[in-house]
């Protein structure tokens, strides 16, 4: 049962990812991204990580794809819907293979445990996130802060030109 589900979700994830790079319409690419990210949430659910699955749906399936779509629709993409910049594809291949290599190495060196999967207790998740992993957590929020400040600077710069 879970293998069947996983297979279906994997096909959806990979198909969505393929759609993102294959389609020429930017809005369609964003929607394929949505499909892929939502399927990943399903994979988390198969692994009994409900919290992670919900975070995936809220942040990636909801907020991020909405903001991407919003930006694409605002930038008059309908005037030139068939532009795609593919110069980066060799770099993208290297990056993708690198990630695959790291993940495969990790998977080989530590085979998956044979115990039954179970959902983590929410309290434990929270306390370990804010004590043991507090520094990485704060670093991640720093990245978001940098993005926010960058957005404000760009907006202000264009406002002065007028």
């Amino acid at each position, binding site marked *: 049962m879970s293998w069947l589900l996983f297979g279906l979700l994997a096909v959806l994830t990979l198909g969505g990812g393929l759609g993102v790079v294959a389609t020429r319409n930017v809005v369609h690419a964003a929607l394929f991204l949505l499909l892929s990210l939502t399927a990943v949430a399903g994979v988390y659910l198969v692994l009994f990580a409900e*919290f992670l699955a*919900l975070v995936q*749906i*809220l942040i990636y*399936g*909801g*907020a991020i794809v*909405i903001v991407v779509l919003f930006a694409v*629709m605002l930038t008059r993409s309908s005037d030139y819907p068939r532009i795609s910049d593919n110069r980066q594809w060799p770099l993208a291949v290297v990056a993708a293979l690198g990630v695959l290599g790291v993940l495969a190495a990790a998977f080989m060196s530590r085979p998956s445990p044979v115990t039954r999967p179970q959902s983590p207790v*929410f309290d434990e998740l929270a306390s370990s996130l804010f004590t043991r992993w507090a520094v990485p957590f704060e670093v991640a929020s720093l990245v978001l802060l940098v993005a926010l400040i960058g957005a404000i600077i760009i907006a202000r710069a264009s406002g002065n030109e007028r």
Partner: protein
Amino acid sequence: MEIIDILTIIVKLAVLFTILSVVVLGLTWLERKVLGRLQGRLGPTRTGPMGLLQPLADALKLVLKEDIIPTAAEKVLFWIAPVIVVISAFVIWVTIPASQSLVVQNLDLGLFYIIAFSVVGILGLLMAGWGSANKYGALGGLRAAAQLISYEIPLIMVVVAMAMLAQSLDLRVIVEKQSSYPYLLLQPLGLVIFFIAGLAEVGRTPFDIYHAESEVVGGPFVEYSGAHWAVFFLAEYINTFAVAALTALLFLGGWSGPFLPPVVWLLLKTLAVVLVIFWVRGTFPRLRIDQLMAFAWKALVPLSFYVIVITAVYQFYGWPAWSLTLMSLAGLAGVGYLVYQRMTAPARQVKQVQARQRALAQSRRAAAAGGTPPAPQPVATQGPG
């Protein structure tokens, strides 16, 4: 998983869907009646006793109407958008309990689940606006995205504060914790923010900017007709009912109350909130989009952070309950003062302009009497901003 389990879940979902559909039919009738009374009309009277059959007639009409798909529309997006909107509205109800035991599937992360899926509905609106290949539709979709993303933040922050108070994301535990007194008394500011942001979330007047008929002629729904449009309508009322039920569960003590059975109490409280929503619709004019966004980012977001901070301080130092009430009321009073300032601003500006015009006329008269040409003076011709 056993076959029986899957079957029971399917049966439960079917029952839930039937109940929600009946509730939506009832709500449309109630809204017409209440709005009619508020505006000095009778509302529907001809179909059945007190117009009770009006929603059935409407539903029949919508189903029988021709379902038009524009030639220029993106067929897949156009077709799938209402489905996404209604499913995201419907799945929220899976974990909303009607009483301690009456719930389709209780989740430990119930509140978080509700928030996660309430965001997905926005995507459907964006896709509807884009897919119908219509300027008003695209504009409405963009407005929906901007508005709903903005109001999602205060909503989530207040929900987090309530979860902090109850020390749980499980709606049943949150209601249990309110058995002695509802959280309305502890966190009145939270209730106000939640209610306003909730109204904006479901796009009801005065926040119906993204489907405002007089501005974007229906927004994302402009090209929809017949059954597809009815699906959007269904989702809107399911969402309204969900916001009312969540307000009752989070702030009004849910199903706790004397004498009557729990389900009846929850229904009564939810109905009261729904009536307030209709009342607000009958009372306030629609906001402008810039007012809407400014109100979200300059008023509601900082206030929701204030709610989180006072709740955290109260929890951490273990202060008595009335201290949180006082802090919350202080925030509410501050907002009340600001809103009062804004509401009376036009009158004040009109007075200023009138005073300036009087002074100008006086100086002109004086100049004419003196024989020298009047010096050009800047005149405030701008109306109240």
